[in-house]
């Protein structure tokens, strides 16, 4: 077995997306469309392919935010590795670390942060990796299975979910699917209102403009807008990549809550996801315990009605490049010290 790692350029997009999209521990954040989006947000997105005897078996699409100060080399929802082949995974990861370290050498980054979607416990190959202070993607999520028939998907929903979906359909909530930039403002208005109402941080409009510009033409994302009485009353943004569709953002107005537009939206998104060949629908984050102060406390009850099964991930892990960190810390210590003396 010979493993080697090298940078793979845009010519590899198709092959890379096929591989990353089918790897369970990976996700849309490894896709080339997402990299394009992140580039427009100012990131550098180096990508490495891991080759075994010349065949692409893994790799990582990395994010580096160029900055005067130091940060982390990020690998959200990655790296793509054959995690079940422990030794290959270990060797692959080592190659990746050295590649990232070379990258960090020129960029002053203090570590590598990965976030593979592996169920706990963390594999022993990550023994020397520390738990990150922050996870980019939710650690607990609900995953609806789409590999069965539509009837089965409905059957797996909670009765109340099915009932509310029927209710929305009976009320005549009309769901429009769109990947047009001009519909973004309709979505954003609702999203912003929801963020304001529920007091969470809303990504700025520019973020969605960038996201739409990169993901819509690549057929990687779509908006679903619920219309009722001639008005848009709820909207969600769903990302499709490989085996999984992910509900990423949503918003609704308080006005017509009783016609249950959100159920109709998610149902439409699930149907569309099946059409696009996705086998899972990730509801993206929920609170499995019912803790009153949990981040997803409010929306969890709604998500549970849609019939997903709980999935846990090990969360983000950091590998610190100690020499780089020491350099930064030393710089800071020397500075405060010399200032004190002056």
């Amino acid at each position, binding site marked *: 077995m010979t493993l080697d790692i090298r940078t793979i350029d845009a010519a590899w997009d198709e092959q890379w997306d096929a591989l990353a999209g089918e790897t369970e521990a990976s996700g849309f954040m490894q896709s080339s469309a997402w990299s394009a989006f992140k580039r427009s947000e100012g*990131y550098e997105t180096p990508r490495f392919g891991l080759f075994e005897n010349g065949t692409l078996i893994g790799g990582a699409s990395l994010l580096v935010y160029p900055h005067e100060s*130091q*940060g982390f080399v990020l690998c959200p929802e990655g790296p793509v590795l054959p995690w079940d082949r422990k030794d290959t995974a270990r060797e692959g990861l080592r190659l990746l670390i050295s590649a990232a370290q070379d990258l960090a050498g020129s960029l002053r980054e203090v570590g590598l942060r990965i976030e593979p979607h592996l169920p706990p416990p963390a594999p022993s190959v990550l*023994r020397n990796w520390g738990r990150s202070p922050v996870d*980019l993607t939710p650690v607990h999520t609900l995953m609806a299975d789409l590999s069965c028939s539509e009837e089965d998907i409905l059957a797996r929903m909670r009765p109340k979910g099915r009932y509310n979906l029927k209710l929305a359909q009976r009320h005549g909530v009309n769901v429009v699917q769109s990947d047009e930039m001009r519909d973004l403002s309709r979505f954003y208005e609702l999203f912003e209102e929801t963020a304001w109402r529920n007091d969470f941080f809303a990504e700025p409009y520019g973020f969605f403009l960038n996201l739409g510009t990169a993901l819509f033409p690549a057929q990687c994302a779509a908006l679903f807008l619920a219309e009722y009485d001639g008005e848009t009353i709820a909207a969600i943004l769903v990302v499709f990549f490989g085996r999984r569709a992910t509900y990423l953002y949503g918003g609704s107005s308080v006005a017509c809550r009783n016609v249950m537009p959100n159920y109709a939206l998610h149902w439409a998104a699930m149907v569309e996801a099946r059409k696009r060949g996705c086998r899972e629908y990730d509801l993206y984050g929920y609170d499995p*315990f019912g*803790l009153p102060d949990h981040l997803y406390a409010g929306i969890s009850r709604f998500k549970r009605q849609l019939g997903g099964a709980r999935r846990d991930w090990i969360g*983000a892990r950091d590998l610190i490049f100690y020499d780089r960190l*020491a350099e930064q810390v030393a710089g800071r210590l020397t500075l405060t010290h010399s200032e004190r003396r002056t």
Partner: protein
Amino acid sequence: MTLHIDERTDGNFALFIDGDLQFDTADEALYHEGLTLPALCMAGSCARVLICGGGDGLALRECLRFPGVERVDLVDYSPEVVELGRTRFAGINRGAFEDHRVAVHIADAWEQLDTLGNFDVVLCDFTVPRKPDDARVFTREWYSRISASLNPNGIVAVNAVSPQATPEAFWCLRKSIRAAGLNALAYRVCIPSFRAQGYGAWTFMLAARRPLRLADLKQLECPVETRQLDLARLYRGASFTRAESSIERHVPVNSLENLCLVPLLLNPAMDDGRWTMGGGRWTIDDRRWATDYSRNSTSGRAGSLSSIVHRPSSADPSSTVFRPSSAHPSSESPFDLAPLLNAIPVTHPYHTREMVEAMAEQVIGAIRSLDIKRLVNALLRRAGELPKDLVRELRKLRDFLRDHTPSFDAWREWSYRLFAALVITMTLANTIAPDNAFAKGAHGLGHASMSRGYSGGFGGGRGEGGSFSSARSGGFGGTSFSRSGGFGGPAPRITSSGFRSRYSRGGPVDVYGYSYAPRYYIYCGGGYYHVHPAYQVSGGQPAARPEKHQALFVADDDMMVLDSGDVVITLSDGAYLLVTGGTVALFNEKNPEPILPVYPDPGLFRNIQDQVQSQQAAVQHDSALRRDWLGWVGWTSALFPIVAEDKREVRNLDDMTRKLDAAARRIGSAPANAVPASPVTAGQVELFVGGYLLSDDTIGIRQPDSWLYTDGRSIWTDKEEKSKSRPCPPLLTEAVQSILKKLQKELTADVASDKNDLRELYTDNLQLQQDLVQYQGIYMSSGYQSDYEVDYGTDSISVSQAISRTQADIQQNQIDYQQTQLSHDKAHIDLDRINSALHGLWR
């Protein structure tokens, strides 16, 4: 780069580049006339014009219609924008690109400038920089190069930034232009679409080698008609107050080795001196925040990191740095990171200050998993760069680590300076990437908490405070509020703007000045003088008329001081305890009359009085200061709104003091002979202070002179026979049920979360054990060669090291497991009891 054209139904449209508005056709003329015409008018000649950026062709349009313009060079690095300029925008730029006088260069202006010759007018129409790299064309070096390619009477017009939204960046830009040896004249132009995006009043800057005076703008004579801009009034936007322009003195110059414009754009109002530039990086000038902090500093060595990060008072490092952790009484908070965390800058437009602070607290938790030994060794490899005393400190730390298991406490106990520098470095590293603003993980930053500025606090978790409703420990029952958590910040104080806007709006506030939704309680006065007629013990007075009282001050999630001076402790959605006049009574929210008197527990009263007093002290301090201030300036309240506001604020504070005074008096204290409740015995669950779920599922309530028992159907006291029981009023049953249900819900969540943690810890442990066995196997089969290389995660280390590290991991895992197990067991036992009660008697 992403381009987006936002089309509107009225035919107007707007161009966004990377999410930033470039122009809106509704008012773009304001911008482009404002940028180009004053420069063209004031230049001696305008035969040769250079436009840097501006690929949309709109500034070009303005130049071309100006008489005397013979040639215009346009340099834009984005072919996409220029293409749009040629096609989509041809209608609004009047086909400017077709003009024979125009030469377009698709190139980086920075590279191209020197090849283009000299100009009479240069227009810098760049987008506002978002990354330090983009700020290159806003540096002193850039302007000197422009100055060099300017004809003697030439003039430069620069698209600046808002002096309103980002004053420091604005003055930094002006200073940079002046640093290049040019004279600068800035003028504001109000562009409604920019304002709508929150960019504030916009500014352009003229620069020239000759002096530029305000009068030049006043006497502007423009040979062409303007569409939207009123050139005659332009000069009005060109004067700045002395206070505004004094900012220029403090800000650095944006230069190639110090690209500070973007940080200044992102950190407006951080100009209180907390930041200085050093080596082209943002670093903390601890002298300034030390002054803020010196009041709390025991060491009194203001101006050093160690005075912020408290160290034991002795100056000799050998005796202080190496004190075992037990030498620190836990009550004396070892050090406070709050000022440090406050000073970490925001590095991206998506981030907010609260996010950065919340992140810093998360980082402190995560530093636990760092390998101190490796870091210390890596630092010592750079010993040459470090101050000597620090190297000494580090060497001793290394020696200590050689013989001891590194633990989290080692960081805090052994080298505060290192720990502080590490926290800053790691927090910065974590906040660099804008995506962290949107972190969705439960482990990460809560969105809600970030936008509100409240953070759970490291080490806050499940505290062991005096518990009022103690089935879930921690404060008054809920999760406790602790901003600086385990690092014990200074006592909470009302922030200066705490009440100003919120106090009179009706909602209660807490010590941090956050306001809550208004809450009302309707009752007839507390105490057991007016208990429910059915339980009047003796000498009851007729119940007063029910009154509605409003919550005034939130001491903790569950404790509120009402405007009447009474204190309410919320037990559930339906039940609360009212504390007044040395008495405690249980209420059902549906009924204004108390259900039962409850024993006045001295601990409860002490706790409430402490809370009220600390709040009172804070309010009084603030009020006295403001009163002194008003002593000076009070008579000008008719002239200055801010003084009038201060007057109102003092009235509010006085009102608050009166009410807190009243509360302190009204609450009273427990009778002198009152005894604290004995700790709960096995099988009992404390529901609230004085209320217990007993082992036979009956509820025991400790009353002033007896114990009252109820099974939901009847009630009896310990002085009476159970047979003499009276029927239990439905209000009491309901209240008990609601309390039980609330606790059930909370405990279920706690147990589930603990169970999950336990399961994960257990599987982790299995894995660790497996690894250990493997390492030991390798050790044996290698013939007990301790330096035999093995895989440890992605590291390769010697087998003996791998074994010892795995053992240490196992040990830590077991400690975590035991702690979680304890908390789980306690919650679980209580939950079982509550479940059985809710299934049995309290169904």
